[in-house]
């Protein structure tokens, strides 16, 4: 799905989280929102997912105005920073949640839900863990379960907030590859937030560098490396 952000601004009381920013995300792209904390990248992601509403500006999905759509209507697969798995549910119930939450007429029958959850567990390469609780999983496993749960609703796009932030360096490398593969298999337009420039440069097709609620530069990783548009970008990617 093609996403267009048109002059989106967001203020919380007297603090400005986002200056008016505009950005076009081509269908099927893997995009990184890169910047230090307080740069507005998470706010922008949450606006795309419908968890925040912009103070002004519009969001367009495939050319249609989606600004007023509720979080449920957006159908965005969202992976939270600390994964936010439902701690009182098993992995199976976590992944099945979105399917079971559908209105009765579009809810798949029980056998179909089971088939889809099994398939997703295979996709994240954790077929054995359906009956475990989140507290019994490692950090990397939790991240993959969160990804499977987001994919279960057949989302129109995938949004990830610091998906590798809580993991140690080795697992992080592995899971980067995992996200890339899942993106390539599903073909979903994917946006992830990160403060780690290596991660953004290695994984993304398109990197959006942000600072102080503004977009500093948008480009392919190699172009940003070769031609940083502002002193901030040069400093940030060299750090």
């Amino acid at each position: 799905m093609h996403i267009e952000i048109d002059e989106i601004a967001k203020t919380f009381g007297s603090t400005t989280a986002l200056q008016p920013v505009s950005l076009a995300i081509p269908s099927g792209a893997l995009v990184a929102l890169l910047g230090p904390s307080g740069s507005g990248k998470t706010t922008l992601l949450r606006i795309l997912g419908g968890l925040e509403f912009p103070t002004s500006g519009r969001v367009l999905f495939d050319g249609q105005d989606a600004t007023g759509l509720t979080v449920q209507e957006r159908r965005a697969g969202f992976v939270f920073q600390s994964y936010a798995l439902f701690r009182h549910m098993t992995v199976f119930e976590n992944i099945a949640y979105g399917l079971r939450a559908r209105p009765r007429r579009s809810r798949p029958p029980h056998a179909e839900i089971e088939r889809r959850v099994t398939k997703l567990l295979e996709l994240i390469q954790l077929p054995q863990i359906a009956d475990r609780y989140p507290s019994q999983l490692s950090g990397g496993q939790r991240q993959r379960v969160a990804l499977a749960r987001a994919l279960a609703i057949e989302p129109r796009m995938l949004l990830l907030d610091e998906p590798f932030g809580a993991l140690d360096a080795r697992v992080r490398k592995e899971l980067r590859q995992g996200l890339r593969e899942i993106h390539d298999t599903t073909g979903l337009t994917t946006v992830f937030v990160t403060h780690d420039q290596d991660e953004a440069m290695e994984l993304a097709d398109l990197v959006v560098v942000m600072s102080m609620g503004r977009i500093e530069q948008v480009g392919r990783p190699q172009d940003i490396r070769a031609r940083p548009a502002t002193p901030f970008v040069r400093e940030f990617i060299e750090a």
Partner: protein
Amino acid sequence: MFDGSPEDHIPVPAARTSAWRPVTQESPLVRAVLIAVALGGLAILVVAPLIVVFAEALAKGAGEALRSLAKPEALSAIRLTLIVAAITVPLNAIFGIAAAWTITKFDFRGKAFLITLIDLPFSISPVVAGLALVLLFGTNSLIGGWLVAQNFPIIFALPGIVLASIFVTFPFVARELIPVMIEQGRAEEEAALTLGASGWRVFLTVTLPNIKWALLYGVLLCNARAMGEFGAVAVVSGKIRGQTATMPITIEMMYNEYFSVAAFSLATVLALLGLLTLALKTLLEWRHADQLAATRRH
């Protein structure tokens, strides 16, 4: 002058052979004293009074105690107290959940003030609360006069007792829930919303299961206090024997009239009702221990 090498100034104590124990453990003497103080305090303040109450109730035999409980005055007090608790506790559970939800899941102006307001019943004497209800709903007030004319009196009747109990026990559920809900944050609810769940479904399938233990604990505290409340209820009930006298009030009246077996028998029943809720909680925790461990923080 300070020369930058603090090692020169701090004397290193000689190693003592008696210090071979974990750093967090006190010496045997200190441990013994602390345990003695704790157990002694528990015995004098909790166990002894309970035993005395039971002993006084059975002073003239179990038959006499049971006969005193079968009297209409005692039966009516037990029934009234149970009715009041049955109305107060569910209402305060709903109010408590609503207040805790509002405070922890939304940001708004005056939040700190609302938290203070919830604590108000803890800082105001129940007697004052009772008097305020009498002034507001008594026969001489505008609202009270009208309600009496409609044949629905509040003061010296069941509604007044329920209102007083609700006021006094208002903070219990909210106080238990707020810290738990703050600690759990909003992420799980947000995740459920992005998965397409409606607000009501999110509450039932995500929020409620996460807070159920805190809610149960708050409800039990609320129940114990609602059954035991004396001051506020004494003011609004008018202490009409067999009609508006709850268990604590009946106990006091019996005791003042030297019906000591009757007073302590009823006191025993009240204490047992409290112990019953405690036992219920322990049983639930024991039966769901594995689930309880799983729902704790990751």
